[in-house]
């Protein structure tokens, strides 16, 4: 199957006549399947939903969740919001960035790990909290930082 045919399969699943507001579910599905929203998929999406490419691009770029580049092998989403800050989140952010060798909001050059900000995970009395490849982790302390670093280097 060509790459475009792969995109088209996912698009056809969501661009149904009775599916109103299909764009976000479709983008989520593409990202789930391919890890990101590849550029060549944009005209196909626009075509299927009768939108302009600019409209599709506008939506992709509005939402922080949607990425147009392939993701790092491991993604750490660390909470930066107030309740986690009240529990030492800023210091943990610094430690994590140092241990992983990557700044907040960036992926490491070798593609092994990305450190992304998230504003609250709804676990606000047991922070600092993070999602490690989607798995929730709470009460991150120095030992926790080291454990996370080991996990994502493996």
């Amino acid at each position: 199957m060509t790459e475009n045919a792969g995109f088209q399969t996912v698009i056809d699943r969501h661009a149904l006549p009775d599916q109103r507001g299909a764009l976000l579910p479709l983008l989520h599905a593409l990202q789930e399947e391919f890890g990101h929203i590849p550029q060549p998929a944009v005209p196909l999406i626009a075509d299927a939903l009768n939108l302009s490419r600019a409209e599709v691009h506008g939506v992709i770029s509005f939402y922080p969740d949607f990425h147009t580049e392939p993701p790092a092998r491991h993604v750490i989403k660390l909470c930066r919001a107030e309740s986690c800050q009240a529990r030492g989140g800023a210091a943990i952010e610094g430690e994590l960035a140092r241990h992983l060798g990557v700044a907040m909001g960036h992926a490491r050059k070798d593609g092994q790990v990305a450190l992304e900000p998230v504003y609250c995970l709804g676990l606000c009395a047991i922070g600092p909290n993070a999602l490690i490849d989607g798995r929730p982790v709470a009460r991150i302390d120095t030992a926790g930082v080291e454990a996370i670093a080991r996990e994502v280097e493996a």
Partner: protein
Amino acid sequence: MTRVFISRDMASVALGADTVAEAFAKAGCEVVRTGSRGLFAIEPLVEVETDAGRIAYGPIGPGDVKAVLDGTHANRIGPIGEHPFFSGQQRFTFARCGVIDPLSMRGYAANGGWKGLDAAHALSPQEVVDAVKASGLRGRGGAGFPTGIKWQTVLDTPAHEKFIVCNADEGDSGTFADRMLMEGDPFHLIEGMAIAGHAVGARHGFIYIRSEYPFAVETMHEAIARAASRIEPFTLEVRVGAGAYVCGEETSLLDSIEGKRGEVRAKPPLPAIEGLWGKPTVINNVLSLSAVPFILAEGPQAYADVGFGRSRGTMPIQIAGNVKNGGLYEVGFGLTLGELVNQIGGGTASGRPVRAVQVGGPLGAYFPPSMFHLPFDYEAFAEAGGLIGHAGITVFDDTVDMAKMARFAMEFCAVESCGKCTPCRIGSTRGTELIDRIVAKAPRKADTVETLPQMRNAGTAARTHDEEIELLRDLCDTMKHGSLCALGGFTPYPVLSALDHFPEDFGSAHVHAAAAE
């Protein structure tokens, strides 16, 4: 076979509940996964079914199975209802959370589920709306608008199609009640939405859940599939957000469901008249919709009997941040902030003195302990220059730097602004820079243009500290009055409250009179 109950709530899992559940299963127990009872300090919590009812133990690790099963474990709590964190609560909305298997239709029905929907179906739409009005229920999403009045507008607007939208975007730091309810008692929200559908004549509903809540998304999907036949002809679907805080604002949320950029719409038209795809739409918070089954099942008076002033009923209050007993505390309005933070919350987790609490999420004001006499009530908080919002309380100890928190509020606004209006989009960035200069004691100097000889009226002296502070207040004033929605409009709350109550953190002298103004 011994039956044990262990939460599958995202918070419990983050604290290791899955490995504990595995250990009990391996020991031959029947493990029922429930929602969370709501006190994080005792998670992972294990409740063992005995002849004398459920006996709770917590926190429990995977190595504690034997000691729990033979009843000798040191962390024995006893019946959970007797624990001081729970004995004072009034659980109208969270009655089943932590008690039943969230996806058991049988468990739901056996524990009072569907009573509200059945009662509603026996009434006319107008009678249902009247009941909600009589209960005094106000929107739990932040603005506190009377839910019954909103529903009346939708009922009164003729249309071929109407919608019920549940706002489950819960982006405020310090809040997790929506998440806990969706994970711990999803049929309850479904029941509330089906009642709303009957009340206003809507056939279809959307639940818009933020993507940061993967457990809630999964649970709601499954619950909707299981309850489909029970709520007919009403139908429901889940839509997942994509990381934008502003999509919690109701009109931005509607645009997001429609598949657009989540930009805020100008009001009017109200969503109740022209909402989703231009159709009359009820949009309510998870907790507002989930208060409704109780109101229908027990009668509006039972709900209205509880509360304080014009804040009727119960509020699931979320105690968060640097606090010993963090968690969910559902109770009638009217407890004081001090009771919530010190008695119920037990003070800080770090053991240091409380310095500030932020109430109502990132757009809420910071209060010092000298204001702990405030009763938890919409009007009292508004009068004190703050808001209740979604009822999250974030506690900070005395190591907090309030200028940093004020800066964070501006930065958060800059990150999350939808970009539609200038005071919010640009003002938040200027505000961040301004606070940086204030803290660095590096006031702005005249720039090249201002020092040109022809700029005769421009000031050439660097600003003083007081002038920079004045400018910050001025900027807040512009944002407050010139923003289209509460993101830009309420960001001044945390900034100004930090400045008023903690001026020393900004390098100014503490003047008590200023705080009182």
